[in-house]
């Protein structure tokens, strides 16, 4: 039986929860294929406690790869150690998360393993010829379905937030194997990448996270001056805050503390109003658990409308003005 390998995601010696989602995706593959043996691989200077925790939480067998001197994620270390380990295992699938780590090492690992490589997988299905994988393309407007060529392994980076791990009650703890990698990265100063330090961008996004109602602006508002209208709109609601898509932050129109999304804040307000936001997966990841979503977009085919409760096809700024007028009229 071929192995379905899951690479655990570790950050600062902690298991990232996306690891459980990878296990769920691996189970999906096993169910569709009616075969396969899932194993989880974790890399660390001292993998024992990590491996133990993963085996306990998932009930899946774990391989802990001990790499002296590996003090955190490093693309060269991951590619070298994983290709060394995996070459002897003949896996059918290698699953990593579509996160900054997974996106960093998975394509290179695929090349080393002479494997197929599909990134950002958001659905796994099968047809008469075998497994097929869906991924988002064209600014999230469509999904492209791909089939890996048979006979070689496939490396998949799995979109976070899609596959749900259900932890059933009495899980029987998985087995653990600890191996030591035959290379020492700590003393090897010839490494091509040298990690200096990890910094955290100072950010006070408490306001955003605590707000009941968030009015968010995207590139569709057209110009910086129109942010004024967004702030006015937000003032219609109590306990409200203004959010923004990343491009507005990147161009300096508004501060990082307003950014919603995978590289900004993850928010769960009662109401989220998206003004001129297209609905990229990176943005959706930051607001999809909102109770109630309203979107205003001039393009009736904008992806955000698929993820909204109420859809308004209008120019965002004109709509806000109309809304403010309606509200003033009713209050009068």
């Amino acid at each position, binding site marked *: 039986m071929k192995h379905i390998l899951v690479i655990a995601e570790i950050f600062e010696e902690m298991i990232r929860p996306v690891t459980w989602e990878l296990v769920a995706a691996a189970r999906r593959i096993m169910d569709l294929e009616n075969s396969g043996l899932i194993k989880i691989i974790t890399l660390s200077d001292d993998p024992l406690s990590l491996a133990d925790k993963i085996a306990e939480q998932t009930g899946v067998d774990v391989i802990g790869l001990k790499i002296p001197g590996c003090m955190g994620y490093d693309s*060269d270390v991951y590619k070298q150690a994983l290709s060394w380990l995996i070459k002897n295992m003949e896996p059918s699938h290698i699953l990593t998360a579509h996160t900054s780590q997974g996106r960093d090492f998975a394509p290179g690992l695929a090349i080393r393993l002479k494997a*197929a490589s599909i990134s950002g997988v958001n659905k796994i299905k099968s047809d008469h010829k075998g497994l097929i994988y869906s991924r988002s393309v064209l600014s999230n407007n469509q999904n492209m379905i791909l089939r890996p060529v048979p006979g070689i392994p496939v490396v998949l980076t799995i979109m976070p937030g899609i596959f749900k791990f259900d932890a059933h009650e009495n899980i029987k703890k998985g087995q653990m194997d600890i191996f030591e990698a035959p290379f020492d990265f700590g003393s090897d100063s010839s490494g091509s990448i040298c990690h200096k330090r990890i910094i955290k961008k100072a950010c006070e996004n408490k306001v955003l996270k605590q707000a009941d109602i968030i009015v968010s602006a995207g590139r569709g508002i057209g110009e910086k001056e129109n942010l004024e209208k967004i702030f006015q709109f937000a003032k219609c609601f109590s306990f409200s805050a203004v959010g923004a898509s990343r491009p507005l932050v990147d161009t300096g129109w508004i501060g990082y503390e307003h950014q919603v999304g995978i590289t900004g804040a993850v928010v769960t307000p009662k109401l989220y109003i998206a003004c001129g936001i297209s609905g990229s997966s990176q943005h959706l990841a930051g607001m999809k658990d909102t109770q109630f979503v309203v979107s205003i977009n001039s393009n009736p085919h904008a992806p955000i409308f698929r*993820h909204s409760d109420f859809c*308004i096809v209008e120019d965002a700024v004109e709509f806000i003005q109309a809304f403010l007028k309606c509200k003033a009229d*009713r209050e009068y």
Partner: protein
Amino acid sequence: MKILICIKQLSDSKDISRFDAHALEEAILLKQEFENQGIDLAAVDVVTIGPLESSKIIKRAFGVGADRGYHIVTRDYEYISSFETASKLAVVAKKRSYDLILTGIMSQDLMAGQTGPMLAEMLGFPCVTNVVKTNLTLENHSIEVEQEMENGFRDCLSITLPAVLTIQAGINTPRYPTLSKMLTAGKKEIVTFNEAELFPGEAEPVRARETFVSMEYPEKTRSGHLLRGSLIDKAGELLSILQEKNLV
């Protein structure tokens, strides 16, 4: 110091893919920094794979200061897997010994984010993805970069050259081409290749490792009730809905 930037043209707008514009700008900024430090040997080359009309983005790159252009000509804007793209780019990248190769973090249409790291692997170069800052140090022939991670974290690294970096938006603001550069751009030569010239003597040089099946529209996750009527009707209806839900 030779820098190569991989740029892609979008089939719908014919524009340069968004993140590639940031990669190009970063190369121009690095070149200027070299010149400020008195090292004026920097050359900035661009390469694209696309149909004939993709030469438009090479000319645009000349207009912002690129020195040479390479064009791998395809018949149409066909689907090319990242593996094939990287294999083709690697051939061009090997023609001159580049110190630094920049790509976008992902292409705007395919959104794979694989070409850069695959190209690095094929060339045997180290690679840093998600770069949001570069800082030139000429020590040990390396460059300092910041790699963006989730939740506002950044990894500050130094990477030995030659290397591949994939560039994230927010690193810079791409400039517009200048008229004077655009005028001289016409005189600059674009070196073109077709597939046969790229892989001489090989019947089937690189084959995709995953094949296209179909396109689908993503599923809805919410009901998506469409408000109808005039602008003011819709505004009134939304106000009523929100009032009913006690949200306003």
